[in-house]
């Protein structure tokens, strides 16, 4: 039932996007998030879309699939678009609805914000779809390592993150199972009036929490009996490997940013 959710899932592949070092991909996405805010006119927003679509194409993941998997956030996208359309009062009046007027500036602003939202979501989805959760956390731990100097528990944070990521699919499966079991007992949160659906949440959440706590306890015990005692002196089995292509990827993004900077108005 929840199987169409793709956020946080990994699709194996061997495109160049898959092979780029996870650290490079993380830095790339963070820089990209900043760069998106450079765009402020049609050309620069157009370039953003083109850039994003090129990366989707190179990653070898079907675009149709990304869009269909993003349906849950598509709602947010439409919502922000409407918000800007109705509440930005710039430019000339495009439409007079009686209770309010819609301005050209509002529509344009709405479109821009929607594009911004879209490229951000697609880019981060590409990151998670092409990188195993484990490499993402490894990369994050390595990138944050300098912050250990100021006593930030980097290893613990990375561990927490990798455990959470590891258990997302497990919890999804569990949710699916419990949902079905409660549906069979006549409590359905996928159909019916809103109030009925809300009532069906409790029978789903309580068993889910119970099993999550049980799992957490089991995991803690299993880690302890195998001698886990924090990051001190711990070696790694998987080594990340920074290559020329990773540097090139970052440089390409910098070039793109410079381009946007020159073309923005």
């Amino acid at each position, binding site marked *: 039932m929840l199987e169409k959710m793709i956020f946080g899932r990994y699709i194996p592949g061997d495109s160049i996007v898959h092979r780029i070092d996870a650290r490079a991909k993380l830095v790339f996405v963070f820089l990209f998030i900043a760069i998106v805010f450079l765009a402020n006119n049609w050309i620069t927003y157009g370039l953003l879309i083109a850039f994003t679509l090129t990366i989707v194409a190179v990653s070898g993941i079907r675009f149709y*699939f990304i869009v269909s998997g993003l349906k849950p956030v598509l709602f947010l996208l439409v919502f922000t678009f409407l918000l800007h359309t109705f509440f930005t009062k710039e430019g000339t009046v495009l439409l007079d609805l009686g209770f309010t007027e819609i301005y050209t500036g509002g529509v344009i602003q709405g479109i821009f914000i929607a594009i911004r939202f879209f490229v951000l979501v697609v880019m981060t989805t590409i990151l998670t779809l092409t990188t195993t959760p484990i490499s993402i956390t490894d990369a994050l731990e390595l990138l944050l390592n300098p912050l250990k100097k100021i006593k930030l528990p980097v290893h613990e944070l990375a561990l927490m993150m990798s455990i959470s990521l590891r258990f997302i699919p497990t919890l999804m499966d569990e949710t699916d199972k419990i949902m*079905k*079991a409660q549906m*069979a*007992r006549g409590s359905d949160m996928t159909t019916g009036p809103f109030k009925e659906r809300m009532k069906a949440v409790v*029978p789903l959440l309580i*068993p889910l929490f119970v*099993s999550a706590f049980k799992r957490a306890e089991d995991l803690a015990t299993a880690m302890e009996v195998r001698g886990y005692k924090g990051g001190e002196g711990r070696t790694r089995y998987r080594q990340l490997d920074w290559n020329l292509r990773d540097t090139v990827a970052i440089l390409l993004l910098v070039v793109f940013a410079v381009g946007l900077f020159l073309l923005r108005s």
Partner: protein
Amino acid sequence: MDIKLQQVSYAYAAGTPFEKRALYDVDLTIPSGSYQAIIGHTGSGKSTILQHLNAILKPTSGTVQIGDKRIDAGQKPKELKSVRQRVGIVFQFPEHQLFEETVEKDIMFGPMNFGVPEEEALRRAHELVGLLGLPQQVLEKSPFDLSGGQMRRVAIAGVLAMDPEVLVLDEPTAGLDPRGRKEIMNLFARLHREKGLTTVLVTHSMEDAGRYADRIAIMHSGKCVVEGTPQEVFAQTELLEDFRLELPQSVKLQRTIEEMTGHEFPTLYLTEEELAEALASYWTPNGEGMN
């Protein structure tokens, strides 16, 4: 109420890169009042079939006829509550579905969802706790304070409380101790016999399939490969070997005896009692009769 699966195929996550075909053109008819066992290895699609029996899953292609309700592939869900009430499913590890403060409330949850009045639901809860061999005191306890075996019984009571016409059981005794298994399996047999409850049992135990079922279906890689009475199914030794399934213990022993003595029994003995009786009637004190 008959349930009829026609050319049912099902794929999980259809249309995504994670698409997983789980059923291929399955035909299966479960007549009203029968006891149908479904056996097969893990991952062969047994649980997937079960979820079609009360329209929790809808076929990717083919049709499922549940009583007078017809579920076609690709059609929007209609009113399914009555189907859910008439076909009760006990999922694998049903104790995971318990959530209420007290056992009593949890058992009443199903019937009350289907509009049964509170007093009637309460009455059923009290009756079922006894039927499942639990002391009445558990009714006031939190389900999370019970032992695993007791939780399983409470969960089963929660489904029986819906008063279904068809009882669907997905490995209901997995993880229970031998005595608990026997008690629960005997209870299902009794409900089937006395109340005419149509029963569908998924099991890994060939003994249970042979002992309790009228008909057995074998699932293999998402296909229903064999269907017939226990006699018919367990007579096809080579076929079972192809699917790496065992014979019931009593049949195995019967085959060994037949091999060693050269004597052919007229029929298969699906339970140890039947086999013992057959052997006893051949047995004479002076050692004659076995050949």
